[in-house]
């Protein structure tokens, strides 16, 4: 039995309200059969300092990535990981995390590559749950292992590779990094110098919309109206566009992918997870510098 959707009116305005839940809803639903809560953070220890009761941890760096190749885990490993966490193919999964759900959105995108049907984000993430003084526990849940089927990833629909981006040049793209990274002044994200590139700038034609513009001060997503004002009115994107989003390693752009796909109802959005750490280190790909979008000659 699927867990019911959150019918909160703020969520109802989004294109796919079933992809979000509020903290109130989650607090009421905790412990429901068929519901799994997953915490996915930038900080690998944060879950262990206290988490939503019953929540399990999935770490993007160490669990969703292949340990050797720059790629995500395969179907067998994903099945093992989810099975160990007590998550079945029909389970409703609610993911939350630190930093405006940045890594939570990345985990949700990876779950979507495997076609996990019912996966939702907690609007406001960990910060809102904590700010509201809701319960946290250090008790580690011990879910019974379940059988999760081995499903191979489908990388063709919501994931873009470098060659896809080369073929896409001239069509809509969104660069969600900071303005300094976009213009090329910075070869890395502020405070993250280890994930650098030998060239700075952006993919020609890409619009600059830093990912956090989609988040309100309390870490929830902005209203649909406010999001439309940014992506559609200001940037001129349309829900019928074929859009590629990228950042530095694909994590911040997962957040924007979520916004465009699930909140604004864009039909074709791909996340280029190679992002600037691939593009800015690649030989002979076109690059634009400065604050203008630029174009390919």
């Amino acid at each position: 039995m699927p867990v019911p959707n959150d019918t909160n009116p703020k969520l109802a305005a989004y294109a796919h309200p079933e992809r979000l839940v509020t903290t109130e809803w989650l607090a009421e639903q905790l412990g429901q059969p068929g519901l799994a809560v997953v915490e996915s953070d930038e900080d690998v220890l944060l879950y262990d300092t206290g988490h939503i009761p019953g929540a399990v941890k999935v770490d993007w760096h160490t669990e969703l990535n292949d340990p050797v190749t720059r790629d995500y885990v395969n179907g067998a490993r994903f099945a093992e990981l989810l099975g160990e966490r007590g998550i079945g193919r029909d389970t409703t999964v609610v993911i939350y995390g630190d930093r405006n759900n940045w890594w939570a959105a990345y985990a949700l995108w990876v779950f979507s590559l495997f076609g996990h049907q019912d996966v939702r984000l907690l609007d406001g993430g960990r910060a809102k749950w904590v700010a509201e003084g809701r319960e946290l526990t250090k008790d580690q849940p011990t879910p019974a292992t379940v059988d999760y089927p081995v499903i191979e990833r489908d990388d063709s629909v919501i994931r873009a590779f470098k060659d896809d981006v080369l073929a896409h040049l001239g069509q809509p793209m969104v660069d969600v990094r900071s303005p300094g990274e976009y213009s090329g002044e910075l070869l890395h994200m502020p405070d993250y110098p280890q994930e650098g590139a030998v060239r700075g700038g952006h993919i020609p034609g890409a619009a600059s919309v830093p990912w956090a513009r989609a988040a309100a001060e309390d870490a929830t997503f902005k209203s649909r109206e406010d999001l439309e004002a940014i992506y559609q009115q200001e940037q001129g994107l349309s829900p019928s566009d074929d859009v590629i989003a990228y950042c530095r390693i694909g994590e911040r752009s997962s957040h924007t992918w979520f916004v465009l796909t699930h909140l604004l109802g864009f039909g074709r959005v791909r996340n280029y997870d190679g992002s600037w750490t691939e593009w800015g280190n690649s030989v002979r790909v076109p690059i634009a510098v400065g604050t203008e979008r630029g174009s390919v000659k």
Partner: protein
Amino acid sequence: MTAPAALPPKLAELVDDFAELGVKDRLQLLLELSEELPALPARYSGHRDEMEQVHECQTPLFLAVEVAPGADRTVHLFFDAPPEAPTTRGFASIMYTGLDGQSADEVLAVPNDFYLALGLGAAVSPLRLRGMAAMLARIKNQVRSAG
């Protein structure tokens, strides 16, 4: 794995402690260390402008280094990182436990890549680990510039 000979005794002990544990237990030890990081003394509390920010850590970390007068030039370390950044606090706590109270020469002699011997790469991911190298580099710079 045995710690390199150039490590001060307390740091060598920590490196050995980590290396003896399995991957999951290393995280647990890092968590315990994060909880033991001492609070800032009053003279630094609320005075981040008198501390140096370690930009290489994924979450802002502030650091102050004092070198005591005297032949040994004893080094004292002070760190400030928020509770929602336990990994960064854990890294800082390794530095504090291993290096606070050592002489300037001993601190300067610590190999820049000592942290690799902690075996945290698999548990934490190499991308998250680099902040530790930056922390040590900034500590050494401050020790040097303290004359």
